[in-house]
């Protein structure tokens, strides 16, 4: 008898989910945010459809404020996978010069939430893969793997389809769409172990290095380019830092760390005492129900 490990079973489940979507949806797309979860999702897509390239494009809903290392890896990874890369910028956010320094919550709302809706509408995608995991956040724990959205992209947590066995109901009316989360049952540790086992390339920012930083509002921010407005009295300090999650650089808190290799990163993660999303400003809005509210509004 051959014994399947937990990673084998998670991989098989994710591949099964992706193939179901390709078999049943008319126009699927994979949301690609360049983070470690996206990297794993893309790798699984390559496995699911080998020897063909994954039969859908990658979509990056960009804010123009990601780390430079992320843009570099994004273009490289898409090319290596033989997939089309679609990059979308919300024209309104672009025109109004929306940025995380001056606009706070509006930045996420316009660039990401609205940008995503616009992009899905523009290309008429009826199924979109996302790399969210159920262990990330409480309201995610109850989300389905196939999560149904109305024509206006709204999520109704009270009206979710029951999901039994490995049977996914991908039926939908015209205009409606489905968000699909093939990594639902993975944990942060699973992701890291899989990255190591499979040798998946990730953005170097996950590993510690000397980087210019500023401490602000309790977050340790990296000064990634010249657009970072320094407040009076602020001077970038070089610290050995790394990131547990990656988003827009002015919104993503780094941690001081010397973990420069993958095993060291995992070691640090296992011994650490704060959760992964702790560095994200977004979850703290609207009390304990921040993410749930955002999801109802159409955030991924």
């Amino acid at each position, binding site marked *: 008898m051959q014994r399947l490990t937990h990673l084998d079973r998670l991989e098989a489940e994710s591949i099964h989910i992706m193939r179901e979507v390709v078999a049943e949806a008319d126009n699927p797309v994979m949301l690609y945010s360049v983070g470690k979860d996206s990297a794993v999702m893309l790798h699984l897509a390559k496995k699911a459809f080998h020897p063909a390239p994954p039969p859908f494009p990658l979509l990056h809903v960009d804010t123009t404020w990601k780390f430079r290392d992320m843009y570099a890896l994004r273009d490289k990874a898409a090319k290596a996978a033989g997939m089309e890369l679609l990059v979308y910028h919300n024209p309104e956010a672009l025109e109004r010069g929306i940025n995380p320094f001056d606009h706070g919550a509006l930045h996420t709302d316009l660039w990401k939430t609205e940008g995503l809706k616009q992009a899905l509408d523009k290309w008429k995608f009826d199924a979109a893969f996302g790399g969210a995991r159920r262990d990330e956040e409480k309201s995610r724990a109850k989300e389905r793997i196939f999560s149904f959205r109305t024509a206006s992209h709204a999520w109704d947590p009270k009206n979710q389809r*029951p999901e039994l066995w490995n049977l996914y109901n991908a039926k939908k009316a015209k205009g409606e769409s489905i968000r699909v989360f093939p990594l639902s049952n993975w944990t942060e540790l699973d992701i890291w172990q899989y990255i190591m086992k499979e040798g998946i390339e990730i953005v170097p920012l996950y590993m510690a290095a000397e980087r210019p930083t500023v401490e602000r509002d309790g977050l340790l921010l990296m000064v990634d380019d010249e657009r970072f407005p320094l407040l009076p009295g602020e001077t970038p300090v070089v610290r050995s830092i790394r990131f547990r999650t990656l988003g827009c650089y002015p919104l993503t808190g780094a941690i001081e760390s010397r973990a420069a290799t993958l*095993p060291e990163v995992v070691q640090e993660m*296992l011994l650490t005492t*704060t959760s992964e999303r702790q560095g994200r400003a977004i979850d703290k809005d609207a009390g304990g129900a921040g993410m749930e509210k955002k999801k109802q509004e159409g955030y991924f």
Partner: protein
Amino acid sequence: MNDASSEPLYRVDALIAEDIEAYLDLHQNKGLLRFITCGSVDDGKSTLIGRLLYDSKMIFEDQLAALEADSKRVGTQGQAIDFALLVDGLAAEREQGITIDVAYRFFATEKRKFIVADTPGHEQYTRNMVTGASTADLAVILVDARKGVLVQTRRHSYLAHLIGIRHLVLAVNKMDLVDYSQEVFDRIVADYRAFAGTIGIADFTPIPISGFKGDNITQAPSVNTPWYDGPSLIEHLETVEIEGAAAQARSLRMPVQWVNRPNLDFRGFAGQIASGTVRPGDAVRVVPSGKTSTIKSIVTFDGELDEAVAGQSVTLTLADEIDCSRGDVIAAADAPPQAADQFEATIVWMSDEKLIPGRGYWLKLATQTVTATVAQPKYEVDVNSFEHLAAKTLGLNGIGVCEVTTDRPIVFEPYHESRELGGFILIDKLTNATVGAGLIRFCLRRAQNVHWQALEVSREAHAALKGQKPAVLWFTGLSGSGKSTIANLVEKKLHAAGRHTFLLDGDNVRHGLNKDLGFTEADRIENIRRVGEVAKLMTDAGLIVLTAFISPFRAERELVRGMIPEGEFIEIFIDTPLEVAEQRDVKGLYKKARSGQLKNFTGIDSPYEAPENPEIRIDTTTTSPEDAAEQIVQRLLGEWVPDL
């Protein structure tokens, strides 16, 4: 704090700190166990799960800080940490203090990763428990030591057993509140054993615990239960044998999900192996066609494999070019599964809208999606008393045994042999909601007795001889809308143009073929189903069929549409407002209906569901019957059968 804090945690921090590589090696090879916890509202389910997460250090300092603050604000444990708050996710539920859906939680020990489905214990949520149980290998049935075996305990056990969970743990919780009494524990176990036998549960593992205090969760026996000589809950979860070996020992079945054709030289069949093992050179049979071949290779991203086993997602190539597509099952050549189109199944209803016997639903089983109808239940099971009750339908959370008929044979195995090929979902064709789950008990009629294949004269041959493309022109509209009048005119025109046609009219069919049917909802559905079947046979004979029926329900019109090859079903909505039809009242029926002499009359006391996207819509308030007929014929010849 409580005494659990002195117990060792699952994770060996020393190894992580000293030799991370060794630790990671250890963890690469962990197994995976999925389980559910079920209990009544106050059995402490969420507290137990919170405790498991806490003890496995899946809770971080920032979450703990939030938890402590929440515990003081809305917690039910006074100043102590309320673990339940960790797992009660959605905003509305947090306020009500109850969980209302299925939530999945994750934790890991040295030996295994665990996925926990947290399912609510309320009576009205059978649906959620069945959903959570469908992917679980094991169920933890929680009992409050102060209350013993309750009606809910019996119900949860029945559902877990029904859904095929072979490992049951009877966790007698809140032992701290009964002074850790062995007598209490023994009595509850004896009660449960007596009950379990009556519903066919042969074996279970009883463990006395306190989710709140931590007794017998990670280590056993706890200082408070020296009399207990079994494993702790975690020890049991870590060591219980999962069904991997059994699944691999069965015959090969791989439902084909997707055919991979990147170029003309490669044709691979992608799917997840449901049971058995497969090696290159193995003889296989594609079901339902029955064609045989041998496995040429097992293709993966990491190179070709010498062997693949149940649970893996792979791509198979075959030595011969045989027909095989999504929905087919690649199986061991000498032990293939059967195909059938009529089954007896246990159905769990999951929708507020009741089951409508005779209505067409999508049925999805493995990778097959077909149209299915469910007959009136043979009986409904009372989940509290397990009595069989007479039932005409099934409502939300109803469980019944029903006959299911599919519009074409599907490959299956009985559910007790295979979850993958025996479990199905039912989907409403209009709302696309998942409305039911089914477990196949056995087939009633094997497909091999019905010979559909290889008719000597095919439908194409029939149509070719008549020099036309068959079609069904489905006229729908209120009584008195003008359906029959217009359909008659259309048929005359087509006939004059040399087409072979036939008109099925509502009144005429009810005098013969359907004279046993009345006007109840169920009879109306059956009426339309029969007309659809007749129309289908006539298109097989190459005819252009015109039907004029009120056919008030969208679902039935869609059912017929599904029976007819794509592009051959043309829905024509004769749109006449109720006031206009009632004013015309050609047959005097509206008058009778208004006066109560006629029951279930469409438009009066029975609904008419207008088509949302008919191929043709005729507004009779602005179009005469003659013009309408001409329009239809023109569009028909222009769009659907231009070669006529």
